């Protein structure tokens, strides 16, 4: 389509159409005009504006009934013209405004005319476009008092539409138009901003509409949630823009007392409002009611955009109308604060931003009125909080606590005004303590036990997250919603951050002491207070706030920890103790009572019941477990708060925490491990091992001091055990030191507590054996000789295969020669061996003359072995078994120090023999293990004793047991007797080899074991018996061969040379021989 740029061309085109329209006012003609208009350029259209408008306005003004469709198309066409041109004459503007508004007016009723929705929409758009097309200054002059009635009509029309229409489109358009009409439009088309005077004039003008607008909008806002959020959002928008414009402090302070003499006619003047103080006050009061209504409704609106708009409203009103709407400040702040923890992150972010903005601009703190309002709100909230916490459901608690949190955030350091009031602090703390009450009825807490004691090796998680984000699940009596707990945590942290920490810690410490019922909650609160005070996770809204200094914080933490780890708060009854523990409790009590009664009356009241009850209830034990867990968690929190500074506190804290890490109650040991992780993170240790290792000196200090009072600290040996497991050889001096204490204490208490000490000694020797693996291993030379023997054997076999008589002669000769050598008739062939001897002698020579100080580990092992000798004959089997284990390790550690080992072995021997021969089978098993180790380390020393004291017994028992085991079925393999047989058979072989037994003894062994080669014996015993013979073969192959062949001879022996006699062995060839399988198997092994 061609575009007509010049007015002349355009006129040529448009003229017929306009004329046509003027003659016949039909929809078609209007539409035709509009189509033509589209081909006219904007500038041309501007020139012809009046001309084109004329037929359109004429159509509107023509009296008589008109079809709606026509009006609608006229209005649409008008809107099109206006959107492309601007109105330059005020008169035209006013007239068009009236004509457009009149389209929706039905003279009969006072309500908007019942016209079609399309028409309403068209009119609204037309009005909106008209206001936008007003050129420059005429828009200002348009708003003169005389326009007031017409404007009022339009406003009420639009409000009516917005409120009563069904169509969302119309409602939105009406609200939008209203905004434009009130010059609060936020689009870019308005050429200039208004100066102060103009603003004031407009304000005066609009003030008349304020009651109508505000009430109507409030009705819309508080209407049904179903009407859609966009309506509410725009209504809120119009509401706060209008209110903040009319009630702006800026304008109001310029209003003079006396109303200026108005030049307008009386009728209009009556409509005008003079915004003087009284009016402001009464309007403010009325608005407050509306605002409260709005807040009440909108703050729980399900759609987040609505709540977001509410924040906007609060911000605008508080910023612009803080004086005029002073009464609303309270509700407004409350609304803002309540949204701090909104579930929508956008709302939360916006809210925080506004709060920060307020804090930054000192809107609240700088404004006394606001600060007072806030403190007052906080006061009243604190007062009602205990009741609210008691009566509200979880959702209610969440909102109450959110509110509390918001107040704290907003007040910042000024929170101290509230805290300094004893009554309010008490109220606040009472509410917190009350709501934090734990549910302690769950039996699982006591029930869950930790059985594996070695799990400390857990590596710390390297996540950057706060380690206790996976905090233990707690069950509270008064709420189940996790959010409530999180809010409470934040509240406490904020209190710690802004409040006077000394005051708060003092107060909650008081509660902690006051009653056992408050103790857990108070501890929880204290933990969070310290975290808050460190200011690590708190977002500071008040930049110039001075935080608690690290030194002060450390002092406070030290005092709290002292309380936590004190005897009466740390060592609580958490399980029904075994007999011995209870005994010890009663032992402990008198002394304890004597002390507490003097010093701590408060503690006595609370802690003694726990001690004196012979069997505490499950609830009280649960409660104790939680208390310990919370305190342990506190240790972790404190470490986190102090960071590296916490290292200084390790000397007093690490020991108690480690002790709890070994607690049998699952929850406690978990909590302790977690808190140690926290310590690792805070103090920069890589792992728990590292932590323990680096601070062993502190641990040793605690251990050694507690060992002195073992009845009060029965777990001390356990801590040492853990420490030993996590240390390395570098700590040997420290360990040596504390071992002296342990041994001294053991000597003192060996009848009562030997078992815990023995396990320490066990751990100790395991550690020693690990730290000092013997370098010159005794096994080495033996293997060497074995190899030699083997080659020797091979050689002989070769010879065996040869069949000449010379060979046989040569073999016999060399055999005799070797036998000579073996018997000690040394010939000069073997000078190598002789040469190897002198250096050994040298080494030994230096020994006795100048005794060099023994290595520490040897000294320790010697000392321990000494004790073991005494304890070997302990009454309790359990202890005897453990002692045998320890003894075994001692022998291992001492193996290279024969001077120490042999005398001790000599002294231990009688007891070991006793264990081997006259004890419970279990003990025999272990003792046999010791014997094997001992045999491996000092064979010569043991040989004759073994043969004399032990061997007869062993072989005897093997022989007597053999028929038994041969007869029984599968069940037998589960009996102790079987295990014993097995162990003896398994052990005998290596022992015989290592002890280098003589021929006679070997024969005894062989005789006893032969029976077990029978196929009637259980399979395992057969295997074990075979192993004995395998070892015997190494010692004396020939006689073993002979012995086996005597049992069962698989093949006819052919002499190597015909000149030799035929040999017939006793072994039967028959298939029924029960020894056949095993003998065959063994003979195969024998080369």
């Amino acid at each position: 389509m061609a575009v007509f740029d010049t007015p002349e061309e355009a006129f040529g085109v448009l003229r017929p159409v306009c004329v046509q329209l003027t003659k016949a006012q039909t929809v078609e003609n209007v539409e035709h005009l509009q189509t033509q208009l589209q081909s006219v350029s904007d500038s041309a259209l501007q020139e012809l504006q009046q001309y084109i408008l004329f037929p359109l306005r004429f159509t509107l003004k023509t009296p008589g009934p008109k079809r709606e469709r026509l009006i609608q198309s006229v209005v649409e066409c008008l809107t099109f013209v206006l959107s492309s041109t601007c109105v330059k004459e005020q008169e035209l503007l006013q007239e068009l405004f009236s004509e457009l508004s009149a389209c929706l007016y039905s003279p009969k009723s006072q309500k908007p005319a019942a016209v079609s929705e399309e028409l309403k929409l068209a009119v609204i758009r037309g009005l909106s476009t008209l206001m936008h097309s007003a050129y420059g200054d005429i828009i200002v002059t348009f708003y003169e008092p005389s326009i007031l009635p017409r404007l009022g009509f339009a406003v009420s029309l639009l409000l009516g539409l917005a409120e009563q229409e069904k169509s969302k489109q119309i409602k939105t358009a009406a609200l939008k138009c209203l905004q434009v009409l009130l010059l609060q439009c936020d689009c870019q088309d308005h050429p200039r901003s208004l100066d102060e005077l103009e603003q004031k004039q407009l304000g005066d003008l609009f003030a008349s509409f304020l009651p109508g607008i505000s009430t109507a909008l409030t009705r819309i806002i508080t209407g049904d949630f179903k009407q859609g959020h966009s309506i509410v959002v725009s209504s809120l928008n119009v509401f706060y823009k209008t209110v903040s414009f009319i009630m702006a402090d800026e304008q109001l302070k310029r209003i003079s007392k006396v109303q200026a003499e108005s030049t307008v006619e009386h009728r209009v003047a009556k409509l005008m409002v003079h915004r003087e103080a009284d009016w402001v006050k009464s309007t403010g009061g009325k608005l407050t009611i509306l605002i409260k209504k709005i807040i009440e409704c909108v703050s729980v609106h399900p759609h987040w955009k609505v709540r977001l708009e509410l924040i906007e409203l609060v911000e605008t009103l508080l910023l612009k109308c803080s004086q005029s709407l002073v009464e609303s400040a309270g509700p407004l702040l409350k609304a803002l604060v309540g949204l701090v923890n909104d579930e929508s992150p956008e709302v939360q972010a916006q809210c925080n931003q506004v709060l920060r903005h307020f804090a930054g601009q000192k809107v609240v703190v700088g404004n006394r009125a606001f600060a007072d309002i806030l403190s007052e709100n906080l006061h009243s909230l604190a007062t009602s909080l205990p009741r609210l916490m008691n009566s509200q459901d979880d959702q209610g608690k969440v909102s109450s606590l959110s509110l509390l949190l918001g107040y704290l955030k907003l007040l910042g350091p000024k929170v101290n005004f509230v805290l300094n009031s004893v009554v309010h602090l008490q109220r606040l703390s009472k509410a917190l303590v009350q709501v934090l009450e734990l549910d302690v009825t769950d039996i699982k807490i006591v029930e869950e036990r930790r059985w594996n004691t070695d799990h400390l090796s857990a590596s710390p998680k390297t996540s950057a997250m706060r380690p206790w984000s996976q905090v233990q699940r707690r069950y509270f009596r008064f709420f189940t919603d996790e959010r409530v707990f999180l809010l409470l945590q934040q509240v406490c942290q904020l209190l710690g951050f802004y409040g006077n920490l000394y005051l708060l810690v003092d107060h909650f410490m008081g509660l902690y002491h006051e009653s056992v019922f408050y103790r857990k909650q108070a501890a929880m609160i204290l933990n969070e207070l310290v975290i808050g005070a460190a200011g690590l996770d708190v977002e500071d809204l008040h930049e110039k706030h001075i935080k608690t200094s690290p030194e002060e914080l450390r002092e406070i933490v030290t005092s709290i920890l002292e309380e936590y780890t004190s005897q009466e708060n740390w060592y609580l009854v958490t399980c029904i103790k075994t007999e011995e523990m209870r005994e010890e409790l009663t032992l402990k009590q008198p002394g304890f009572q004597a002390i507490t009664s003097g010093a701590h009356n408060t503690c006595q009241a609370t802690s003694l019941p726990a001690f004196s009850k012979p069997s505490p209830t499950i609830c009280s034990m649960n409660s104790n477990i939680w208390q310990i867990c919370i305190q342990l968690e506190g240790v972790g929190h404190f470490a986190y708060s102090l960071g590296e500074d916490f290292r200084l506190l390790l000397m007093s804290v690490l020991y108690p925490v480690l002790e709890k890490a070994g607690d049998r109650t699952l929850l406690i040991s978990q909590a302790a491990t977690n808190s140690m992780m926290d310590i690792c993170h805070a103090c920069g240790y890589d792992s728990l091992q590292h932590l323990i290792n680096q601070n062993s000196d502190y641990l040793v200090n605690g251990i050694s001091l507690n060992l002195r009072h073992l009845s009060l600290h029965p777990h001390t040996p356990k801590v040492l055990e853990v420490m030993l497991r996590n240390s390395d050889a570098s700590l040997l001096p420290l360990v040596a030191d504390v071992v002296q204490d342990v041994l001294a204490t053991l000597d003192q208490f060996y009848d009562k507590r030997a078992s815990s000490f023995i396990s320490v000694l066990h751990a100790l020797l395991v550690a020693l054996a690990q730290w000092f693996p013997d370098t010159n291993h005794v096994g080495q030379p033996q293997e060497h000789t074995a190899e030699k023997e083997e080659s020797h054997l091979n050689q002989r076999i070769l010879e065996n295969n040869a069949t000449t008589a010379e060979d046989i002669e040569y073999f016999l000769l060399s055999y005799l020669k070797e036998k000579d050598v073996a018997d000690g008739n040394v010939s000069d062939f073997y000078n190598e061996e002789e040469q190897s001897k002198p250096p050994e002698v040298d080494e030994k020579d230096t020994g006795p003359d100048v005794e060099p100080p023994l290595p520490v580990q040897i000294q320790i092992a010697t000392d321990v072995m000494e004790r073991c000798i005494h304890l070997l004959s302990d009454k309790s089997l359990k202890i005897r078994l453990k002692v045998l284990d320890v003894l075994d390790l001692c022998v291992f550690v001492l193996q290279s120090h024969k001077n120490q080992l042999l005398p001790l072995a000599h002294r231990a021997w009688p007891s070991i023999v006793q264990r081997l021969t006259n004890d419970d089978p279990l003990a025999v098993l272990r003792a046999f293990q010791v014997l094997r180790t001992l045999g491996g380390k000092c064979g010569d020393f043991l040989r004759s004793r073994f043969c004399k004291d032990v061997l007869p017994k062993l072989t005897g028992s093997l022989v007597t047991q053999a028929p038994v085991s041969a007869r029984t079925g599968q069940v037998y393999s589960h009996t102790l007797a079987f295990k014993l047989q097995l162990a003896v058979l398994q052990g005998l072989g290596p022992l015989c080899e290592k002890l280098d037994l003589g021929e006679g003894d070997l024969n005894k062994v062989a005789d006893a074991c032969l029976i077990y080669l029978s196929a009637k014996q259980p399979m395992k015993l057969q295997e074990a018996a075979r192993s004995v013979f395998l070892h015997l073969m190494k010692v004396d192959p020939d006689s073993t061969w002979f012995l086996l062949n005597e049992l069962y001879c698989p093949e006819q022996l052919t002499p190597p040379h015909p000149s030799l006699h035929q040999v017939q062995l006793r072994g039967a060839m028959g298939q029924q021989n029960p020894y056949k399988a095993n003998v065959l198997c063994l003979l195969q092994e024998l080369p």
Partner: protein
Amino acid sequence: MAAPPPPSPDPQFVLRGTQSAVHALHFHSGAQGQGCPLLFSGSQNGLVHIWSLQTRRVLTTLDNHGGQCVTWLQTLPQGHQLLSQGQDLRLCLWDLTEGRNAVVDFVHLESMGFCRGSTLAMGQQRWTLAVPGKGTDEVQILEMPSKTSVCTLKPEADAKPGMPMCLELWQADSSSRPLLLVGYEDGSVALWDISQRKVCSRVACHTEPVMSLDFDSQKTRGVSGSAEKALAVWSLDEQQALQVCRTHEITNPGIADVKIRPDHRILATAGWDHRIRVFHWRTMKPLAVLAFHSAAIHCVAFANDGLLAAGSKDQRISVWSLYTQT
């Protein structure tokens, strides 16, 4: 607060890690406001350990005595300087300012023995030092830091008190004349006037060698311990004559060290019987027997804030807070 069980109080903490018997201890509170309090310990193997009482760990180890036992440690009043006397016949002066640990000077000693030295400040930078001298019964007085020998105090020929076992230099408030108390091998304590180089007074306190002595210049009363089962308290009258006031019997023989607390209220002894004994200084009433060590105690020391430390042959140093526990 942890409830100390009735039988015996515990040390506040124990320092481990000298790996050798401890023979000398000295507290150093540090200048006002800078650094935490320190404890110096000298051990059998010739090392001097500097312990931080805050972390309870060794800060530094000084090694300049050739593996020979360190018998005496003393800081000088003018700041971070430490004297250490070893059985390698050297008395080292260490500079410890700002974390340094260098020997700045040393005095060659002429007598081997266990006799510890003694110092007395004479002015801003000058101080007097008493050490056992060349002859077995002599005491040498030096002026420091110039190391010029002032005199040698040798008992009269007929006295035969044996070797000096312990020394204590002091100066009455009223006079400027330095005096020296010497405990001798024969069990006597003598007061020397250094400027006149003569014995003012001598009194036999013990039948065994005097192992250590301490003197309270306010009350002009001193106490000495010896190898026997008694402590002797003696006083000095205006004529500078020593008199034994009383002796106090103890259960087991052997007092290796005796120290009066800086506030002159209590007194602690280091016993060969592994025990520390605490007495009321004025009345000599026994206040406590502290049993912790498992071997003879060689030395005790008091800090200005009341801490008591004891070093023992069992290689540990126990630190006690007497205010809270006695």
